[in-house]
Protein backbone atom coordinates (compact mmCIF):
# COMPACT_ATOMS: atom_id res chain seq x y z
CA UNK A 1 0.00 0.00 0.00
CA UNK A 2 1.06 3.60 -0.49
CA UNK A 3 2.56 5.05 2.64
CA UNK A 4 1.81 8.65 3.50
CA UNK A 5 5.04 10.59 3.69
CA UNK A 6 5.38 12.93 6.64
CA UNK A 7 8.12 15.11 8.10
CA UNK A 8 8.41 15.45 11.82
CA UNK A 9 10.65 18.20 13.18
CA UNK A 10 12.00 17.85 16.70
CA UNK A 11 12.97 20.76 18.88
CA UNK A 12 16.49 19.64 19.62
CA UNK A 13 19.11 17.06 18.74
CA UNK A 14 18.55 13.34 18.98
CA UNK A 15 19.11 12.21 22.53
CA UNK A 16 17.39 10.33 25.25
CA UNK A 17 14.78 13.01 25.81
CA UNK A 18 13.24 12.15 22.45
CA UNK A 19 13.35 8.42 23.13
CA UNK A 20 9.66 8.03 22.31
CA UNK A 21 9.98 9.70 18.94
CA UNK A 22 12.95 7.53 18.07
CA UNK A 23 11.29 4.40 19.36
CA UNK A 24 8.08 4.93 17.40
CA UNK A 25 10.16 5.20 14.27
CA UNK A 26 12.53 2.35 15.07
CA UNK A 27 9.84 -0.09 16.08
CA UNK A 28 7.84 0.61 12.95
CA UNK A 29 4.77 2.03 14.68
CA UNK A 30 4.49 4.69 12.02
CA UNK A 31 4.85 2.11 9.30
CA UNK A 32 2.12 0.00 10.85
CA UNK A 33 -0.13 3.03 10.66
CA UNK A 34 0.67 3.40 6.98
CA UNK A 35 2.91 6.41 7.52
CA UNK A 36 6.42 7.05 6.34
CA UNK A 37 7.73 9.55 8.85
CA UNK A 38 11.09 11.27 8.61
CA UNK A 39 12.14 12.38 12.06
CA UNK A 40 14.44 15.39 11.98
CA UNK A 41 16.53 17.09 14.61
CA UNK A 42 16.01 20.71 15.54
CA UNK A 43 18.01 23.65 16.83
CA UNK A 44 17.34 27.26 17.87
CA UNK A 45 17.79 28.39 14.29
CA UNK A 46 15.38 25.86 12.89
CA UNK A 47 12.02 25.84 14.42
CA UNK A 48 9.12 23.56 13.82
CA UNK A 49 6.52 26.32 13.63
CA UNK A 50 8.24 27.97 10.68
CA UNK A 51 8.52 24.65 8.96
CA UNK A 52 4.87 23.83 9.44
CA UNK A 53 3.93 27.06 7.75
CA UNK A 54 6.44 26.67 4.98
CA UNK A 55 5.37 23.11 4.40
CA UNK A 56 8.78 21.66 5.18
CA UNK A 57 7.27 19.70 8.06
CA UNK A 58 3.84 18.23 8.89
CA UNK A 59 4.31 17.75 12.60
CA UNK A 60 6.74 19.20 15.04
CA UNK A 61 7.80 19.74 18.60
CA UNK A 62 7.74 23.21 20.10
CA UNK A 63 7.82 24.56 23.58
CA UNK A 64 4.79 26.33 24.98
CA UNK A 65 6.40 29.75 24.85
CA UNK A 66 7.14 29.27 21.15
CA UNK A 67 3.56 28.22 20.55
CA UNK A 68 2.09 31.16 22.41
CA UNK A 69 4.42 33.63 20.71
CA UNK A 70 3.51 32.24 17.33
CA UNK A 71 -0.19 32.44 18.08
CA UNK A 72 0.38 36.04 19.11
CA UNK A 73 1.84 36.70 15.70
CA UNK A 74 -1.00 35.08 13.85
CA UNK A 75 0.41 31.63 13.17
CA UNK A 76 -2.28 28.99 12.77
CA UNK A 77 -1.16 26.03 14.80
CA UNK A 78 -2.74 23.40 16.96
CA UNK A 79 -1.30 21.66 20.00
CA UNK A 80 -1.93 17.93 19.84
CA UNK A 81 -0.19 16.68 22.96
CA UNK A 82 2.00 17.86 25.78
CA UNK A 83 5.03 15.65 26.12
CA UNK A 84 6.61 16.86 29.35
CA UNK A 85 4.32 16.85 32.31
CA UNK A 86 7.14 18.42 34.31
CA UNK A 87 9.27 21.05 32.68
CA UNK A 88 12.82 19.71 32.34
CA UNK A 89 14.13 23.30 32.50
CA UNK A 90 15.57 23.35 36.01
CA UNK A 91 18.56 24.71 37.88
CA UNK A 92 21.45 22.66 39.21
CA UNK A 93 23.50 23.60 42.27
CA UNK A 94 26.04 21.92 44.47
CA UNK A 95 24.97 20.19 47.63
CA UNK A 96 27.63 21.97 49.62
CA UNK A 97 25.62 25.14 49.06
CA UNK A 98 22.57 25.92 51.20
CA UNK A 99 19.58 23.99 49.93
CA UNK A 100 16.78 26.02 48.37
CA UNK A 101 13.79 25.22 50.50
CA UNK A 102 11.85 28.41 49.99
CA UNK A 103 12.13 30.96 47.24
CA UNK A 104 13.66 33.39 49.71
CA UNK A 105 16.69 31.10 49.80
CA UNK A 106 17.57 32.38 46.34
CA UNK A 107 18.52 35.73 47.79
CA UNK A 108 22.17 36.58 47.70
CA UNK A 109 22.95 33.82 45.21
CA UNK A 110 24.65 34.08 41.83
CA UNK A 111 22.11 32.66 39.39
CA UNK A 112 22.71 31.76 35.76
CA UNK A 113 20.13 32.77 33.19
CA UNK A 114 20.04 32.41 29.42
CA UNK A 115 19.00 35.88 28.38
CA UNK A 116 16.14 35.57 25.95
CA UNK A 117 15.61 31.94 26.81
CA UNK A 118 12.54 30.69 28.61
CA UNK A 119 14.55 30.07 31.75
CA UNK A 120 14.74 33.84 32.00
CA UNK A 121 10.96 34.06 31.78
CA UNK A 122 10.53 31.40 34.41
CA UNK A 123 13.10 32.87 36.77
CA UNK A 124 11.61 36.35 36.42
CA UNK A 125 8.24 34.92 37.36
CA UNK A 126 9.79 33.31 40.40
CA UNK A 127 11.41 36.56 41.41
CA UNK A 128 8.13 38.40 41.09
CA UNK A 129 6.37 35.73 43.05
CA UNK A 130 8.95 35.82 45.84
CA UNK A 131 9.26 39.57 45.81
CA UNK A 132 12.93 39.33 44.93
CA UNK A 133 14.41 42.35 43.18
CA UNK A 134 17.53 42.52 41.04
CA UNK A 135 19.40 43.92 44.00
CA UNK A 136 18.86 40.79 46.06
CA UNK A 137 20.62 38.45 43.70
CA UNK A 138 23.40 38.38 41.16
CA UNK A 139 22.51 37.29 37.64
CA UNK A 140 25.04 35.95 35.19
CA UNK A 141 24.38 35.45 31.50
CA UNK A 142 24.72 31.82 30.51
CA UNK A 143 26.18 30.51 27.29
CA UNK A 144 26.56 27.04 26.04
CA UNK A 145 29.52 25.94 28.08
CA UNK A 146 29.49 25.22 31.77
CA UNK A 147 32.86 26.56 32.80
CA UNK A 148 31.52 29.32 35.09
CA UNK A 149 29.51 26.74 36.97
CA UNK A 150 32.40 24.32 37.12
CA UNK A 151 34.67 27.03 38.39
CA UNK A 152 32.03 28.00 40.99
CA UNK A 153 31.74 31.47 39.57
CA UNK A 154 28.00 30.88 39.22
CA UNK A 155 26.24 28.84 41.87
CA UNK A 156 22.88 28.05 40.36
CA UNK A 157 22.96 27.08 36.73
CA UNK A 158 20.09 26.34 34.31
CA UNK A 159 20.06 22.87 32.74
CA UNK A 160 17.72 20.44 31.11
CA UNK A 161 17.13 18.09 33.98
CA UNK A 162 17.02 14.90 31.94
CA UNK A 163 19.99 15.50 29.63
CA UNK A 164 22.58 18.04 30.78
CA UNK A 165 21.39 17.64 34.35
CA UNK A 166 22.31 13.97 34.29
CA UNK A 167 25.66 14.63 32.64
CA UNK A 168 26.67 17.34 35.09
CA UNK A 169 25.53 15.33 38.04
CA UNK A 170 27.65 12.45 36.83
CA UNK A 171 30.71 14.62 36.18
CA UNK A 172 30.55 16.23 39.58
CA UNK A 173 29.89 12.97 41.34
CA UNK A 174 33.04 11.57 39.79
CA UNK A 175 34.87 14.33 41.63
CA UNK A 176 33.00 13.55 44.79
CA UNK A 177 30.59 16.46 44.67
CA UNK A 178 26.85 16.04 45.15
CA UNK A 179 24.21 18.18 43.48
CA UNK A 180 20.61 19.31 43.89
CA UNK A 181 18.12 20.51 41.35
CA UNK A 182 15.85 23.50 41.76
CA UNK A 183 12.52 22.83 40.06
CA UNK A 184 10.21 25.88 39.70
CA UNK A 185 7.18 23.63 39.58
CA UNK A 186 7.85 22.73 43.21
CA UNK A 187 7.17 26.36 43.98
CA UNK A 188 3.99 26.65 41.95
CA UNK A 189 5.43 27.99 38.73
CA UNK A 190 4.20 25.72 35.99
CA UNK A 191 5.64 26.64 32.66
CA UNK A 192 4.85 24.13 29.95
CA UNK A 193 7.66 22.70 27.87
CA UNK A 194 7.65 20.58 24.73
CA UNK A 195 4.45 19.72 22.90
CA UNK A 196 3.47 18.12 19.64
CA UNK A 197 2.04 20.61 17.18
CA UNK A 198 0.70 20.72 13.68
CA UNK A 199 -0.75 23.36 11.44
CA UNK A 200 -4.41 24.20 11.61
CA UNK A 201 -4.70 23.29 8.00
CA UNK A 202 -3.38 19.79 8.51
CA UNK A 203 -5.50 19.36 11.58
CA UNK A 204 -8.64 20.29 9.68
CA UNK A 205 -8.06 18.75 6.30
CA UNK A 206 -6.10 15.62 7.21
CA UNK A 207 -7.64 14.67 10.51
CA UNK A 208 -7.26 10.98 9.71
CA UNK A 209 -3.55 11.36 9.22
CA UNK A 210 -3.29 13.39 12.40
CA UNK A 211 -5.04 10.68 14.34
CA UNK A 212 -2.87 7.94 12.92
CA UNK A 213 0.28 9.89 13.54
CA UNK A 214 -0.61 10.77 17.12
CA UNK A 215 -1.68 7.25 17.91
CA UNK A 216 1.58 5.81 16.57
CA UNK A 217 3.68 8.45 18.25
CA UNK A 218 2.08 8.11 21.67
CA UNK A 219 2.28 4.37 21.34
CA UNK A 220 5.97 4.80 20.77
CA UNK A 221 6.27 7.01 23.82
CA UNK A 222 4.28 4.64 26.02
CA UNK A 223 6.49 1.76 24.94
CA UNK A 224 9.66 3.76 25.34
CA UNK A 225 8.75 4.81 28.85
CA UNK A 226 7.95 1.27 29.92
CA UNK A 227 10.83 0.18 32.16
CA UNK A 228 10.50 -3.28 30.70
CA UNK A 229 11.64 -2.03 27.31
CA UNK A 230 14.55 -0.12 28.72
CA UNK A 231 17.40 -2.13 27.15
CA UNK A 232 15.66 -2.13 23.80
CA UNK A 233 14.99 1.61 23.91
CA UNK A 234 18.58 2.33 24.83
CA UNK A 235 19.80 0.40 21.82
CA UNK A 236 17.57 2.34 19.46
CA UNK A 237 18.51 5.69 20.97
CA UNK A 238 22.16 4.84 20.75
CA UNK A 239 21.81 4.40 17.02
CA UNK A 240 20.82 8.07 16.69
CA UNK A 241 22.58 9.65 19.61
CA UNK A 242 26.32 9.83 19.22
CA UNK A 243 27.37 9.63 22.82
CA UNK A 244 29.29 6.41 23.49
CA UNK A 245 28.47 6.47 27.21
CA UNK A 246 25.77 3.80 27.76
CA UNK A 247 25.44 4.31 31.48
CA UNK A 248 24.72 8.01 31.09
CA UNK A 249 22.08 7.24 28.54
CA UNK A 250 20.41 4.88 30.96
CA UNK A 251 20.35 7.52 33.67
CA UNK A 252 18.98 10.04 31.21
CA UNK A 253 16.20 7.68 30.24
CA UNK A 254 15.22 7.28 33.85
CA UNK A 255 15.21 11.03 34.34
CA UNK A 256 13.15 11.49 31.20
CA UNK A 257 10.63 8.96 32.36
CA UNK A 258 10.01 10.95 35.51
CA UNK A 259 9.24 14.05 33.50
CA UNK A 260 7.08 12.42 30.83
CA UNK A 261 5.25 9.97 32.98
CA UNK A 262 5.53 11.21 36.59
CA UNK A 263 3.24 8.46 37.87
CA UNK A 264 2.26 5.05 36.57
CA UNK A 265 -1.29 6.22 36.04
CA UNK A 266 -0.41 9.36 34.10
CA UNK A 267 -1.30 9.19 30.45
CA UNK A 268 1.48 10.34 28.19
CA UNK A 269 0.62 13.40 26.17
CA UNK A 270 -1.98 14.78 28.57
CA UNK A 271 -2.43 18.51 28.11
CA UNK A 272 -2.39 20.35 31.39
CA UNK A 273 -4.69 23.20 30.41
CA UNK A 274 -4.15 25.11 33.62
CA UNK A 275 -0.41 25.01 33.18
CA UNK A 276 -0.85 26.36 29.66
CA UNK A 277 -3.01 29.18 30.95
CA UNK A 278 -0.43 29.95 33.57
CA UNK A 279 2.27 29.94 30.94
CA UNK A 280 0.29 32.44 28.89
CA UNK A 281 -0.24 34.64 31.92
CA UNK A 282 3.42 34.57 32.73
CA UNK A 283 4.32 35.58 29.21
CA UNK A 284 1.75 38.32 29.22
CA UNK A 285 3.15 39.65 32.47
CA UNK A 286 6.66 39.47 31.09
CA UNK A 287 5.43 41.43 28.04
CA UNK A 288 6.48 38.68 25.72
CA UNK A 289 3.12 38.85 24.03
CA UNK A 290 1.01 41.91 23.50
CA UNK A 291 -2.47 40.58 24.21
CA UNK A 292 -4.03 37.36 25.43
CA UNK A 293 -4.12 34.64 22.80
CA UNK A 294 -6.38 32.28 24.72
CA UNK A 295 -4.14 29.38 24.17
CA UNK A 296 -6.71 26.92 25.50
CA UNK A 297 -8.58 27.28 22.21
CA UNK A 298 -5.71 25.72 20.36
CA UNK A 299 -5.19 22.75 22.62
CA UNK A 300 -6.80 19.72 20.97
CA UNK A 301 -6.03 16.59 22.82
Amino acid at each position, binding site marked *: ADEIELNYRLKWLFNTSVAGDIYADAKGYFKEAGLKVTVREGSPEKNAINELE*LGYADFGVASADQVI*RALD*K*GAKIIVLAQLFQVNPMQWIYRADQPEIKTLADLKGRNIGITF*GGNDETVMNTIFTKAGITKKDIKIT*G*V*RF*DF*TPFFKREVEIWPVYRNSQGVILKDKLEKEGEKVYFFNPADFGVNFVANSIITSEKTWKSRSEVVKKFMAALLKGWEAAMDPANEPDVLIDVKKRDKDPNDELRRLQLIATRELIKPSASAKIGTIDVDAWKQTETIMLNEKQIKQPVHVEKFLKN
Partner: protein
Amino acid sequence: MLFRRIYQFLIVYSIGLLFLLLIKSVLSLSDYVIPGVGLIIETFHNVFDTYFFDVMNTMSVTVLGQCVSIAMAFGVGIAGRRSSWMGSFIKVTAYNIQAYPIVALAPIIFILLGDGFLSRLLIASMICYFPLLLSVLGIMATPVVDIEHFYIITGRMRWQLEVKIRAFENLSKLTTVISGSATLAMAGTIVAEFIAANAGIGYSIRIALYQSNLAGILIALFMIGIVISIYQGCLETLGEQIKTRWSVSKRGNI
Protein backbone atom coordinates in the same frame (compact mmCIF):
# COMPACT_ATOMS: atom_id res chain seq x y z
CA MET B 1 31.84 58.21 -1.56
CA LEU B 2 30.42 57.96 1.92
CA PHE B 3 26.94 58.95 0.84
CA ARG B 4 27.09 56.63 -2.08
CA ARG B 5 27.90 53.78 0.25
CA ILE B 6 24.97 54.60 2.48
CA TYR B 7 22.34 54.90 -0.19
CA GLN B 8 23.68 51.87 -1.96
CA PHE B 9 23.28 50.00 1.28
CA LEU B 10 19.72 51.26 1.57
CA ILE B 11 19.00 49.94 -1.90
CA VAL B 12 20.49 46.54 -1.08
CA TYR B 13 18.59 46.32 2.15
CA SER B 14 15.31 47.34 0.56
CA ILE B 15 15.71 44.75 -2.14
CA GLY B 16 16.33 42.07 0.46
CA LEU B 17 13.37 43.15 2.52
CA LEU B 18 11.05 43.36 -0.47
CA PHE B 19 12.12 39.90 -1.46
CA LEU B 20 11.22 38.53 1.97
CA LEU B 21 7.89 40.35 1.94
CA LEU B 22 7.19 38.96 -1.49
CA ILE B 23 7.76 35.44 -0.24
CA LYS B 24 5.54 36.19 2.71
CA SER B 25 2.68 37.32 0.55
CA VAL B 26 3.09 34.63 -2.09
CA LEU B 27 3.11 31.83 0.49
CA SER B 28 0.80 33.83 2.78
CA LEU B 29 2.98 33.25 5.80
CA SER B 30 2.19 34.53 9.26
CA ASP B 31 4.03 37.31 11.05
CA TYR B 32 5.81 34.65 13.05
CA VAL B 33 7.70 33.26 10.08
CA ILE B 34 8.24 36.53 8.24
CA PRO B 35 7.09 39.72 9.94
CA GLY B 36 4.87 42.13 8.05
CA VAL B 37 5.64 45.79 7.47
CA GLY B 38 3.47 46.85 10.40
CA LEU B 39 5.25 44.58 12.82
CA ILE B 40 8.64 45.64 11.54
CA ILE B 41 7.85 49.31 12.02
CA GLU B 42 6.42 48.66 15.44
CA THR B 43 9.47 46.65 16.44
CA PHE B 44 11.65 49.38 15.05
CA HIS B 45 10.07 51.91 17.38
CA ASN B 46 10.38 49.57 20.30
CA VAL B 47 13.96 48.52 19.91
CA PHE B 48 15.64 51.39 18.08
CA ASP B 49 17.12 52.99 21.18
CA THR B 50 18.42 49.77 22.62
CA TYR B 51 19.80 48.54 19.34
CA PHE B 52 21.41 51.83 18.58
CA PHE B 53 23.48 51.75 21.74
CA ASP B 54 24.16 48.07 21.21
CA VAL B 55 25.53 48.69 17.76
CA MET B 56 27.68 51.52 19.04
CA ASN B 57 28.97 49.25 21.73
CA THR B 58 29.73 46.57 19.17
CA MET B 59 31.33 49.15 16.94
CA SER B 60 33.83 50.15 19.58
CA VAL B 61 34.95 46.55 19.98
CA THR B 62 35.02 46.21 16.20
CA VAL B 63 37.41 49.09 15.74
CA LEU B 64 39.69 47.81 18.44
CA GLY B 65 39.41 44.25 17.16
CA GLN B 66 40.31 45.35 13.69
CA CYS B 67 43.39 47.14 14.93
CA VAL B 68 44.44 44.05 16.85
CA SER B 69 43.86 41.84 13.85
CA ILE B 70 45.80 44.11 11.53
CA ALA B 71 48.67 43.96 13.97
CA MET B 72 48.34 40.18 14.22
CA ALA B 73 48.10 39.71 10.47
CA PHE B 74 51.20 41.78 9.87
CA GLY B 75 53.03 40.09 12.68
CA VAL B 76 52.28 36.60 11.47
CA GLY B 77 52.49 37.56 7.81
CA ILE B 78 55.93 39.06 8.24
CA ALA B 79 57.17 36.24 10.42
CA GLY B 80 55.76 33.61 8.08
CA ARG B 81 56.74 35.10 4.74
CA ARG B 82 59.91 33.09 4.32
CA SER B 83 59.73 29.56 2.99
CA SER B 84 62.04 28.41 5.77
CA TRP B 85 61.07 25.82 8.37
CA MET B 86 60.16 28.49 10.89
CA GLY B 87 58.15 30.42 8.34
CA SER B 88 56.17 27.38 7.40
CA PHE B 89 55.72 26.44 11.05
CA ILE B 90 54.23 29.82 11.83
CA LYS B 91 51.95 29.48 8.84
CA VAL B 92 50.83 26.02 9.89
CA THR B 93 50.02 27.32 13.34
CA ALA B 94 48.09 30.27 12.02
CA TYR B 95 46.20 28.18 9.51
CA ASN B 96 45.29 25.43 11.91
CA ILE B 97 43.96 27.74 14.53
CA GLN B 98 41.84 29.29 11.85
CA ALA B 99 40.44 25.95 10.75
CA TYR B 100 38.97 25.57 14.20
CA PRO B 101 35.56 27.11 14.22
CA ILE B 102 35.31 29.71 16.90
CA VAL B 103 32.43 27.85 18.51
CA ALA B 104 34.79 25.01 19.30
CA LEU B 105 37.55 27.24 20.58
CA ALA B 106 35.27 29.49 22.57
CA PRO B 107 35.08 27.21 25.63
CA ILE B 108 38.85 27.12 25.80
CA ILE B 109 39.06 30.89 25.39
CA PHE B 110 36.52 31.35 28.15
CA ILE B 111 38.43 29.03 30.44
CA LEU B 112 41.57 31.02 29.86
CA LEU B 113 40.23 34.56 29.74
CA GLY B 114 36.87 34.52 31.38
CA ASP B 115 33.91 35.91 29.50
CA GLY B 116 34.61 39.60 29.73
CA PHE B 117 35.72 42.19 27.26
CA LEU B 118 38.99 40.41 26.49
CA SER B 119 37.36 37.25 25.19
CA ARG B 120 35.05 39.26 23.04
CA LEU B 121 37.98 41.21 21.61
CA LEU B 122 40.03 38.10 21.01
CA ILE B 123 37.25 36.29 19.20
CA ALA B 124 36.50 39.34 17.07
CA SER B 125 40.13 39.73 16.07
CA MET B 126 40.56 36.05 15.39
CA ILE B 127 37.69 36.05 12.95
CA CYS B 128 38.89 39.22 11.30
CA TYR B 129 42.58 38.60 11.12
CA PHE B 130 42.77 35.54 8.98
CA PRO B 131 41.67 37.05 5.66
CA LEU B 132 44.08 39.87 6.32
CA LEU B 133 46.78 37.36 7.04
CA LEU B 134 46.25 35.58 3.75
CA SER B 135 46.65 38.78 1.80
CA VAL B 136 49.57 39.98 3.84
CA LEU B 137 51.29 36.62 3.46
CA GLY B 138 50.75 36.65 -0.28
CA ILE B 139 52.13 40.15 -0.56
CA MET B 140 55.02 39.69 1.84
CA ALA B 141 56.14 36.49 0.17
CA THR B 142 56.41 38.04 -3.30
CA PRO B 143 59.69 39.87 -3.92
CA VAL B 144 59.74 43.16 -5.80
CA VAL B 145 62.98 42.37 -7.57
CA ASP B 146 63.43 45.66 -9.42
CA ILE B 147 63.39 47.60 -6.18
CA GLU B 148 64.93 45.12 -3.80
CA HIS B 149 67.95 44.29 -5.96
CA PHE B 150 69.89 47.36 -4.94
CA TYR B 151 69.44 46.80 -1.24
CA ILE B 152 70.26 43.13 -1.46
CA ILE B 153 73.40 43.45 -3.53
CA THR B 154 74.71 46.31 -1.41
CA GLY B 155 73.97 44.35 1.76
CA ARG B 156 71.55 46.99 3.02
CA MET B 157 68.46 44.82 3.14
CA ARG B 158 66.79 44.61 6.55
CA TRP B 159 63.50 42.89 7.12
CA GLN B 160 61.84 46.18 7.96
CA LEU B 161 62.86 47.59 4.62
CA GLU B 162 61.75 44.49 2.77
CA VAL B 163 58.36 44.69 4.43
CA LYS B 164 58.08 48.37 3.69
CA ILE B 165 58.93 47.92 0.02
CA ARG B 166 56.47 45.10 -0.48
CA ALA B 167 53.73 46.82 1.45
CA PHE B 168 54.19 50.03 -0.46
CA GLU B 169 54.20 48.36 -3.84
CA ASN B 170 50.91 46.67 -2.95
CA LEU B 171 49.38 49.58 -1.14
CA SER B 172 46.13 49.58 -3.05
CA LYS B 173 45.68 45.86 -2.49
CA LEU B 174 46.36 46.31 1.19
CA THR B 175 43.92 49.18 1.60
CA THR B 176 41.25 47.18 -0.20
CA VAL B 177 41.78 44.27 2.13
CA ILE B 178 42.01 46.34 5.28
CA SER B 179 38.95 48.42 4.63
CA GLY B 180 37.13 45.33 3.46
CA SER B 181 38.02 43.45 6.58
CA ALA B 182 36.09 45.95 8.66
CA THR B 183 33.00 43.95 7.84
CA LEU B 184 34.68 40.84 9.13
CA ALA B 185 35.69 42.54 12.34
CA MET B 186 32.07 43.53 12.76
CA ALA B 187 30.83 40.03 12.04
CA GLY B 188 33.45 38.66 14.38
CA THR B 189 32.44 40.94 17.19
CA ILE B 190 28.82 40.03 16.74
CA VAL B 191 29.62 36.34 16.82
CA ALA B 192 31.66 36.86 19.94
CA GLU B 193 28.78 38.67 21.55
CA PHE B 194 26.42 36.01 20.37
CA ILE B 195 28.49 33.40 22.14
CA ALA B 196 29.60 35.35 25.17
CA ALA B 197 26.20 36.92 25.76
CA ASN B 198 26.50 40.00 27.81
CA ALA B 199 26.38 43.08 25.64
CA GLY B 200 26.33 44.44 22.13
CA ILE B 201 24.11 43.87 19.15
CA GLY B 202 25.17 40.22 18.91
CA TYR B 203 23.63 39.69 22.29
CA SER B 204 20.43 41.38 21.15
CA ILE B 205 20.35 39.22 18.06
CA ARG B 206 20.69 36.15 20.21
CA ILE B 207 17.71 37.17 22.28
CA ALA B 208 15.69 37.96 19.19
CA LEU B 209 16.66 34.58 17.80
CA TYR B 210 15.59 32.74 20.93
CA GLN B 211 12.27 34.49 20.79
CA SER B 212 11.88 33.87 17.07
CA ASN B 213 11.70 37.60 16.64
CA LEU B 214 12.68 37.91 13.00
CA ALA B 215 11.52 41.53 12.94
CA GLY B 216 14.10 42.28 15.60
CA ILE B 217 16.78 40.50 13.61
CA LEU B 218 15.90 42.42 10.47
CA ILE B 219 16.20 45.69 12.33
CA ALA B 220 19.50 44.64 13.86
CA LEU B 221 20.74 43.82 10.37
CA PHE B 222 19.64 47.24 9.22
CA MET B 223 21.51 49.01 11.97
CA ILE B 224 24.58 46.89 11.43
CA GLY B 225 24.47 47.64 7.72
CA ILE B 226 24.20 51.38 8.19
CA VAL B 227 26.97 51.55 10.74
CA ILE B 228 29.30 49.33 8.80
CA SER B 229 28.70 51.36 5.65
CA ILE B 230 29.66 54.53 7.43
CA TYR B 231 32.69 52.95 9.04
CA GLN B 232 33.84 51.46 5.81
CA GLY B 233 33.23 54.63 3.90
CA CYS B 234 35.48 56.40 6.37
CA LEU B 235 38.15 53.72 6.09
CA GLU B 236 38.08 53.97 2.33
CA THR B 237 38.41 57.72 2.40
CA LEU B 238 41.30 57.31 4.78
CA GLY B 239 42.83 54.71 2.48
CA GLU B 240 42.56 57.08 -0.47
CA GLN B 241 44.23 59.79 1.51
CA ILE B 242 47.07 57.55 2.57
CA LYS B 243 47.50 56.51 -1.01
CA THR B 244 47.71 60.07 -2.29
CA ARG B 245 49.84 61.13 0.64
CA TRP B 246 52.28 58.34 0.05
CA SER B 247 51.82 59.04 -3.63
CA VAL B 248 51.47 55.54 -4.90
CA SER B 249 54.00 54.72 -7.53
CA LYS B 250 52.04 54.12 -10.67
CA ARG B 251 54.57 51.77 -12.07
CA GLY B 252 54.65 51.16 -15.76
CA ASN B 253 52.95 54.48 -16.19
CA ILE B 254 56.41 55.60 -17.23
